[in-house]
């Protein structure tokens, strides 16, 4: 089950922007080390900025309501659901997406473990799975099963690759 804690955490990290009548302005976002200026409404979810405005399609849309984890990115290293994170809540924080996660030691170790153990089926959820797993390993280098459950239960995989995801996280943690 999706842990209510998790939802609360995600929601409290990035509260919705207060309503404003002001003209929208351009936002400067730092994504994978590159600065981007985007001119969108302040309540635009980061997901659509990444995917549609900037054309980086590795980050996926699955539910739009912080229920599936497909859209997970890192904001200053914290796994964050970009579908409910509005663009005005980000400020100067550094955003990392799946396209650049391989440049972190955790990301690289996870990608290798994912391929070694052939975790992936359709693959559509896997960007989000890897982003959640990378944040987990950065914080908890040797996660227990319980740690894995709590970090990963926000990520749905309809193909049911969970058993291999768990094994691959453990393998990457040993690397």
């Amino acid at each position, binding site marked *: *089950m*999706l842990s209510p804690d998790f939802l609360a955490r995600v929601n409290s990290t990035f509260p919705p922007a207060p309503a404003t009548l002001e003209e929208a302005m351009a936002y400067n976002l730092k994504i994978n080390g590159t600065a981007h200026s985007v001119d*969108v*409404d302040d*309540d*635009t*979810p980061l*997901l*659509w*900025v990444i*995917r*549609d*405005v900037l*054309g*980086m*399609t*590795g980050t*996926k*849309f*699955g*539910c*739009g*309501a912080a*229920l*599936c984890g497909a859209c997970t990115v890192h904001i200053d290293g914290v796994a964050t659901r970009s579908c409910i994170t509005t663009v005005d809540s980000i400020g100067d924080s550094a955003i990392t*997406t*799946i*396209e650049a*996660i*391989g440049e972190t030691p955790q990301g*690289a170790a996870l*990608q*290798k473990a*994912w*391929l070694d153990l*052939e*975790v*992936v*089926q*359709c*693959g*559509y*959820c*896997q*960007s989000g799975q*890897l982003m959640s797993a990378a944040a987990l390993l950065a914080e908890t280098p040797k996660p227990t099963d319980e740690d894995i*459950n709590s970090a*990963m*239960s926000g*990520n*749905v*995989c*309809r*193909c*049911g*690759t*969970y*058993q*291999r995801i*768990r094994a691959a996280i453990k393998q990457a943690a040993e690397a």
Partner: protein
Amino acid sequence: MDTLNLNEPTSGSSTSRRTFLKGGGLLLGFALLGGTTTSVFAANAAQVTEDEVKAPFAPNGFIRIDPKGTVTLVMPMVEMGQGTYTSLAMLLAEELEVDLDQVQVQHAPPNDALYANSILHIQSTGLSSSVRAFWTPLRQAGAVGRTLLIAAAAKQWGVEPGTCKAAHGVVTDASGSKHLSYGELADAASKLPVPAADSVKLKEPKDFTLIGTPAKRVDTPMKVDGRAIYGIDTKLPGMKVAAISISPVFGGKVKTVDEKAALAVKGVHQVVKIDEAVAVVADHLGAAKKGLEAAAIEWDDGPHATVNTADIIMELEEKSKQPGAVARNEGDAEKALGSAAQRIDAIYQVPFLAHATMEPMNCTVHMQKDSCDIWVGTQVPTLTQMFVAGVTGFPKEAIRIHNHLLGGGFGRRLEPDGTVLAVKIAKQVDGPVKVVWSREEDIQHDMYRPYYYDRMSAGLDADGKPVAWTHRIAGSSIFARYVPQLFVNGLDPDAVEAAAEPPYALPNIHVDYVQVEPPGVPTAFWRGVGPTHNVFVVESFMDELAHAAKQDPVAYRKALLANNPRALGVLTLAAEKSGWDTPLPDGQGRGVSVAFIFGSYVAQVAEVTVGPDGAVKVNRIVCGLDCGLSVNPDTIEAQIQGGSIFGLTAVLHGAITIKDGRVEQSNFDNYLPMRIDEVPVIETHLVKSAEAPGGIGEVPTSIVSAAVTNAIFAATGKRVRTLPVDPEMLKSSS
């Protein structure tokens, strides 16, 4: 870059077979021969290519080799996670004599003449049929390619083709001193007459070097770093995106739309109305969704505004009292029932289910004056083309379907409805438009696995052996809509699959089917099709018989499988590996189910714990499987894991219900998927077999439910006859 390399060079020697060209994204291969290194391959490291590859050597629909050495294998079936791009590529590569890391694969364009699945007679990926259907044709296609490439080399060297050998994409002469790569031979080979597919000699299974190995998947490297392109990732110059809202009541129509409010949203360009839906076209989906909300659409609900699940069930209950179209009748079941020592009756029900593929429905369309382009992930490219012809009036050739990797199919993408809808919208839009459904639209406008209502009766003799078996299935017919030519005399062969032919010796058996269509609710194939429903019913009822006969469920089944050695084999295997005879603590139970489905024999044992609050935890699934010769055992294991979880999700959580003509569920908070903290350990044990390969993708989904509910019975003494499992019913009564 390292993460893209599936097969690292095994040694640092100078004859290392392959290496990366730094930064170029090309995977180069080097021939090992005679101390010289000749560059022979240049396949795209991405390994799945979107665009149709043209190459001089194209002896059939499946093989393309260009003089630079790029070997492209064209995939007639689609990759939706089941690993078919790897399994099918293995069939081709085995006979063509190339390695999997020397090839790229390409999505096939729509073409029934070249790519029809011989089991389904159309270019369709379904019914777990890909390997079964293409087992012979793809090996033949590979062998044709190899024969031609060898012939071209032999001609060049002036020797007999029989003296030459092909391996790893290189032809060598008898001495081993001369060699030519497939790239070097491509032009010459393309000029030779192509032999008939059935005239070429295929390898003996004992000589296989690739088939039967746990080969690495060709599609996964691009799926771990965001490079994989699904339909929803389509990007085109000038493309807009659209969010849609479809009438919440099935069959309703748009009444009013506040276009002005929608257009006032920054980034919104256009509001498109069609009969049943409204689309807001914008620069990005954030704006489109906001615009859609602002549009405050009102609907004319139409004739189905009072449809409710309870009424649908009532009608099924009523109509299933009457006899239906007979699927099987042997002996005299009624008479045998009358004279049996013991009679058992039961009613089973399974709910409507949504597919909820991880990638929500989407389709990108560019309408042009006399033609159109469509970017989508579909299980049925030719059928989609036909439907688009229907809404556009364009000839087939003017409808270009660009297929993609699918973010899950499960049967949902056997339906072209999403493409048809996108085309209707795109007709009003200038330039390309990508229509993306929200998760809510995806769940509420799915086409659902039918609600089935089954009446079971059996008679047992004094020893508890079944002497009569009747099974009546009532529910919607998908065949009647999808393949009406196969819906004959009121019998839907899918609705009765695995019910008409249970694996057991049953002397007097009568199975029939009553078609009952739920008003307004569209129904469709769902992973496991007929068997997901029927195996649950048959195997649950078989468990009831074992219980009535006061016999062990495994032993009882074994006695009825004496003449079915492969079914007996998987049952014995699963029981043994599960430790069937070892006791479990209180509150826990083991259940078994066995079936012959999609050409494979399968048995599962599930272990569950039922809490005092009725909560069910599935702890372990042990699967015995005989799917004939296995092409890729690792993919098979992955399918057993994933397919079981897909089935478990339905058993424990899955139900679509309808109130006032609307689907009540909307997202993953009320249509619950299984999550990582809930899933059991799943063990797969394969029977080694040389029989023709069976299907696999839908096998575990079909078998798992009864194993779980039978385990619940073992733990609690309560029989689950209606899915999903209701914890209320399982609460300890104390």
